[in-house]
């Protein structure tokens, strides 16, 4: 029965790839005919399952954790396609198991969407969990930020060994209070960097007194520069070069380092960990750099106010042609009010193009921050063509919501080399 379901799954996977379809369909098929497939397969891994969750930065952080562990010689299974639901995990597994259902890996490192992770951990309890943050994100799907915190808490409670928490996020840090049998470790920021990372409670300078700075952290980010950063690991300082861009990505490097150190324990080779970290390339749309007509073009995915604020702070606007693409499809979140929780003053030099289904909401937002907008073209392909020809040899940067980014990539793939994700 199990080899049969794996065979069927692999066939569906092959067929849906030919069709260019979504990554979760074959997983759905296996889920229907063999619901125990994921649990049975993952339970054979010697180091078990490590889960990464939180509202922001899961994809990049998971990628970092995987590369850090691989750099230490571990074989790692992961759900690389970004299909972070149970079904997506099943689909990814199908690509890796042999027909007897054996997975040739030491550990699974999985990115899980916070709502779906709750179902996943009921199926299989993770040995390690890394919880990144609870930022205002797609609230129309989950209702409230506090509810999202409860979801992450359930993941932590289902974890059997170690939970790694963000010391700087009051909601995530508070999860420690609900844990008794798990080991809890933190990653954190130096006090000098805290003002760079506002959380949703302390927008507009009304600082929350709830910053839990008293806890010691395993890895602390102490300085961020253009192409390097300083970390304090277990009290001792290290400077490393980085290919990652954006301060929030670099903070997530502290999370990934802490998580990898917990998983590896005494086997961790610190020099090699930093070598691996220095070589991590950004995940798609997370500050990755492309070349179009000989000029550099950066894509920055923005999903919520904190991410947008950090994105604007991370990337200096001066000297760049800027485009903003805002959609309100289901995957983006239908509610546009989040744009009003972002300051756009860093773009005071002007935005060259505003596009997307909600281009006029965005343009209106910029108008109220006194940011000049040169052109508004709601149709993304038209807007992109005009933007690129208008930019000439200037470097370009595009801030885009999730589905807007998919549309931008589809257009870019016609003129340059870019991974198209459907």
């Amino acid at each position: 029965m199990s080899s049969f379901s794996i065979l069927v799954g692999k066939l569906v996977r092959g067929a849906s790839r030919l069709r260019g379809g979504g990554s979760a369909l074959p997983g759905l098929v296996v889920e229907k005919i063999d619901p125990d497939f994921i649990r049975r397969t993952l339970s054979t891994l010697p180091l078990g399952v490590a889960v990464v969750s939180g509202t922001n930065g899961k994809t990049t952080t998971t990628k970092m954790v995987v590369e850090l562990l691989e750099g230490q010689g571990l074989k790692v299974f992961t759900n690389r396609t970004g299909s972070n639901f149970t079904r997506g995990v099943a689909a990814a597994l199908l690509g890796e198991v042999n027909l007897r259902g054996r997975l040739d890996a030491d550990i699974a490192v999985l990115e899980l969407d916070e709502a779906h992770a709750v179902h996943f951990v009921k199926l299989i309890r993770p040995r390690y969990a890394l919880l990144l943050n609870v930022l205002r994100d797609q609230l129309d799907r989950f209702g409230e930020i506090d509810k999202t915190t409860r979801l992450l808490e359930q993941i932590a409670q289902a974890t059997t060994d170690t939970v790694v928490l963000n010391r700087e996020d009051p909601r995530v840090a508070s999860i420690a209070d609900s844990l008794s049998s798990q080991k809890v470790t933190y990653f954190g920021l130096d006090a000098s960097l805290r003002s760079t990372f506002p959380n949703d409670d302390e927008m507009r300078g009304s600082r929350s007194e709830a910053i839990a700075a008293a806890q010691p952290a395993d890895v602390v980010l102490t300085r961020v520069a253009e192409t390097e950063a300083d970390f304090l690991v277990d009290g001792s300082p290290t400077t490393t070069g980085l290919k990652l861009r954006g301060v929030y990505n670099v903070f997530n490097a502290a999370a990934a380092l802490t998580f990898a150190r917990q998983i590896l324990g005494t086997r961790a080779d610190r020099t090699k960990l930093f070598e691996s970290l220095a070589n991590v390339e950004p995940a798609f749309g997370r500050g990755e750099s492309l070349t179009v007509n000989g000029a550099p073009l950066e894509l920055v995915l923005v999903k919520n106010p904190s991410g947008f604020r950090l994105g604007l702070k991370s990337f200096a606007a001066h000297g760049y042609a800027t485009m903003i693409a805002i959609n309100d499809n289901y995957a983006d979140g239908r509610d546009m009010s989040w744009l009003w929780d972002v300051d756009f003053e860093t773009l005071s030099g002007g935005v060259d193009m505003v596009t997307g289904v909600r281009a006029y909401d965005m343009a209106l937002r910029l108008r109220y921050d006194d940011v000049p907008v040169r052109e508004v073209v709601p149709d993304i392909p038209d807007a992109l063509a005009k933007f690129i020809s208008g930019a000439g040899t200037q470097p370009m940067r595009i801030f885009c919501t999730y589905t807007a980014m998919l549309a931008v990539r589809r257009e870019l793939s016609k003129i340059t080399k870019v991974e198209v994700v459907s």
Partner: protein
Amino acid sequence: MSRDIHIVQLYPRDMNIYGDWGNVLVLKQRLKWQGYNPVVTEYNPGDGFPSDADLIVGGGGQDSGQVVIQQDLQALAPSLRAMADDGLPMLVICGLYQLFGRFFKTHDGVLIPGIGVLDIETHGGPERLIGNVLSVSEEFGEIHGYENHSGQTFLGPDANPLARVRKGEGNNSKDDTEGARYKNVVASYLHGSLLPKNPAIADFLIEQAVTRRYGSYEPVPVADADLAELARLSELARSHAANRPR
């Protein structure tokens, strides 16, 4: 001579979600562009309440935020009621809309007293009402926004609805009312933020505030304001919003 208008933002630390800050920003900028000088005070629990407020703005919040402000709000209740009775313009959204009513009864049956500025009552429900809303008001025309609340609000005889819902749920899933009006108080469930895409409401609040303070409303647009371009952008944002799914 500078013509100051004092805006007080109620509880921005605890009751400020889904872009409520945008409402204050819109009032501030429109006042400036119309030749007035906006002064904004953020009022948080324990602060002294300004005695010369011209316009009061309050937003929504998490359940935890409502608990934090409860005691302070009750202490402030008599003066807020007096100011509302006296015609001071106020805009309250979502969470503070509920608390400006008579009471909020949670889904678990806990009774949270309101401050009774508005003759409304709210009952916590099992489901959240979420999505784009289009409503129509005799005073302000079409109102565009986004709702996200589990409280079901019902109007008493002394409150009028702000608008009637065409798309979405509004105050509750039983009738077609959205928001409430009392004197110069405008209350609504709509985020969006409400004022950027509904400038008629913003200008109503501004007109009331200015008239109360200076006896007449005489906007003098500043040189670079380009209010026609702003009106065009607002209209385009409204018409695009109107065509989006719930």
